[in-house]
């Protein structure tokens, strides 16, 4: 067992974990933050995307112990109190989700995308989200959602 201490959504969380425990399982199983999803086992779908020290990262590719001392933001910590994040709003306004399974990861990737490029073109949005798979939406409304957030953000 290894001791980890991670600031998750602004709160310091410490636990003894199996050294092989993935960050995504630490979040989901230990902290009950089940908004972060698992969609594959080869680090390709992006459903598990969270922010680690402000950058998007696939939490299925990181051991919890590697995140020791980091600041992690999950979908549950994105809104500012009752105030939805502009991307959450964009996804709602533009129907950027159907089953919602890819959505938390998609939103967290988009947060990173807009941080790097606050007014992306459609092409840049599509390429910027290539690490996140969605099987429901055909991506068009997701692109609209990101544009919506960029316009309002």
């Amino acid at each position, binding site marked *: 067992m290894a001791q980890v201490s991670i600031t998750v959504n602004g709160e310091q969380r410490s636990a003894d974990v*199996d050294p*092989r*425990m993935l960050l995504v399982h630490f979040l*989901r199983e230990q902290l*009950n*933050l*089940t*908004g*972060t*999803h*698992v*969609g*594959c*086992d*080869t680090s*390709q*779908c992006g*459903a598990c995307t969270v922010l680690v020290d402000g950058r998007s990262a696939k939490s299925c590719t990181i051991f919890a112990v590697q995140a020791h001392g980091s600041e992690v933001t*999950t*979908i*549950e910590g*994105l*809104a500012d109190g009752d105030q*939805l994040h502009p991307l*959450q709003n964009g*996804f*709602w*306004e533009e*129907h950027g*989700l*159907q*089953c*919602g*399974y*890819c*959505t*938390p990861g998609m*939103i967290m990737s988009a947060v990173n995308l807009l941080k790097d490029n606050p007014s992306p073109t*459609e*092409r840049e*949005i*599509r*390429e910027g*989200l*290539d690490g*996140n*798979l*969605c*099987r*429901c*939406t*055909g*991506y*068009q*409304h*997701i*692109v609209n959602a990101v544009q919506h957030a960029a316009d309002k953000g």
Partner: protein
Amino acid sequence: MAASPVLPKLVGQRVKRREDPRLIQGLGTYVDDIKIVDMQHVAFKRSDVAHGRIRSLDTSAAESMPGVKAVLSGAQIAEFVGPMPIGTPFPSPDHHAVAVDAVRYVGEAVAVVVATDRYVARDAADAIVVDYEVLPAVVDVEQAMTGQPAQVHADFENNLAVALVPSGTGVSADLKTIDDSAIDKAFADAEVVVSQRMLNQRLAPTAMEPRGVVAHYEPGKDTMTIWSSTQNPHILRSFIAAMNGMGQDQVRAIAPEVGGGFGAKINIYAEEYVVAGLSKRFGLPLKWTEDRSEAFLATTHGRDILGYIDIAATRDGKVLGMKLRLIADIGAYNMLLTAAIPTLTMMMANATYDIPAIRTTLTEVFTNKTPTDAYRGAGRPEATYFVERGMDMLARELGMDPAELRRKNFIQPDQFPYATQMGAVYDSGDYGKALDRALENASWDELKQQRDAAQAEGRLVGLGLAMYVEVCGLGPSSSLPTGGWEHSQVTVERDGRISATTGASPHGQGNETTFGQMLADQFGVPLEHITIHHGDTGVVKQGIGTFGSRSQAVGGTAIHLAGAKVKEKMAKYAAALIEANEDDLVFEDGRISVKGAPDSGKTFAEIAAYAYVPVPLPEGLTPGLSEEAFFEPANNTYPFGCHIALMEIDRETGEPTLLRLVAVDDAGNLINPLIVEGQVHGGLAQGIGQAMIEEVRYGEDGQPLTGSFMDYAVPRASDLPRFEMDSTVTPTPVNPLGAKGVGEAGTLGSTPCVVSAAVDALSQFGVTHIDMMLRPEKLWQIIHGGQS
């Protein structure tokens, strides 16, 4: 008295979804999010050979691992989980949930582990050692039909699951008499015949949420609760109850938030039976969550059907007859609906055309692959693909514009209801209207000039067009072994809020929104005052489920009818309270009042409260406002549309790029156009994915070559263009909403029009058909090495 707000009518509006606030904040609950005290974890050991006999199974290392509660072989599981039932009337081999003595595809379960932790359960499964006598793998479907290189099931000679079934012109419904004269005459009279063998390849449905099950048998109550990532909790309940010797009243099935289904979550799977059976045996809550790698092997695949098509026509483009010989590679076993899916391909062979004679035949074949079952469109995209590619070849052969050839053969608007050669009765349609709209939106004539100009410059640019008609809104009961209806109960609560149940269990379709819109309009109350309950057999008394684009047409109608019954009763209460004639009352803006005199009435909540404490009780009424309705449509619905694609292929690399996709879809009346658009977008992505990048492949030894997202390409955002969408509206007479269903539409027209665009781009190299997918290497060969 405060003035009531004026509520807008919501049906037909782009209302944003009520489901979204929880989902965009990570507050939805999917199966893997469920935790129960004492819950144990289940893992499956799966076969890594395609075909073999199990010589021995050594579980000793697994059993001795700390945290392992139990390890069970297939034979031990078979003591309490019998062979799995199917939902079609075809003969079927015994299918054990966990293989007992033989394995027939890579991924078939051979042993089960129960452990305290999911990591431990997986470690233990890995520690099980299985010794197989490896048998030759049956991989090629046409070779399989000769019984070579082996037989998948001893009792099914030549691997025929369903031996040649004919259908169409001259074939009686009971198959007893077959008259070939019409089809023979069509081909004898033909001036032109085009013929082609086409493969509609195997696909992985790939919902982003893999499957998962939690089962909790409570011995004290003798009840079972099963949570599953399923499209149809009521069907799941029936099968789980029967398998466990329990009554349907003792089993509660819950589909919580479900992360996509696409047809692959209709089937009742081995893992559901095993986890439920083990929970009952151990009296403990158990969970199993599928890994993506498992999903590629253990969740049903889709499509995989060969079509041999012949179209007979005159020189001026009138189609006289069509033959379509179908061979379906269904994999190793019959699942719930496996055998029925290709019959839908036969059923829709008429497509949008008035064809005088059609003959189809269907053969279904066992191979050593993952079983197939429904995948978005389920049988209809296959029919559309074969016929539309065939029509495209005919147009090319005749030198005719592909749109003109279609128009020349359409079933005309005044021919509906139209009885097809295949035994379907199309409810309503105006195919010329959808075609015209698509041609206009695409600027077809200019596009053709642009293509010609680009080709003259040496660029490989092509155009493709496809019509489609599909069968949706599945019912009546004669067409579905589960029953072809839907159920709803609508309750006006004591406080004037509305609860409604639906048996159409959603997994992304947005039923909470669309059904809420309908009730809000029906009762004249705010959408926020309505809750739609679904996906829980403990709350939703009856239901069938969501597949075959039936939620709105069948489930929506059940809600509407139950609502109408409550409304009628509520009007009687209102009439009594405000001393008016019930026929003069209107439900508007949160009030029930005499038409034209809003102040005359009472609030909705006041009437509701009265109905629950009815003093005095109006004559002939009972207390309360809760009514239910079953709705069974008399016929299916037949949505249709036209899709057009523009593609460019890189001469140097063979890489295809889809430049434009123009879609016109007619799903009848639309409740929420925003949601409809989303449904079509998703379908288009899957249809384009099939045409261009998706394919499940097996090696000659039956080893899957596409077992992860590294090898199986689900479309990404950058693979797709911005879709150009439009719709025409031809209501159906089959239900009072006039809604046809739209969940699968996108997968029908897109696939053939994209392939036809590629063929068009490369026709200068003498190619008339290209089998999917459009791999750059294949296209490069055509460009640089002559015909493929």
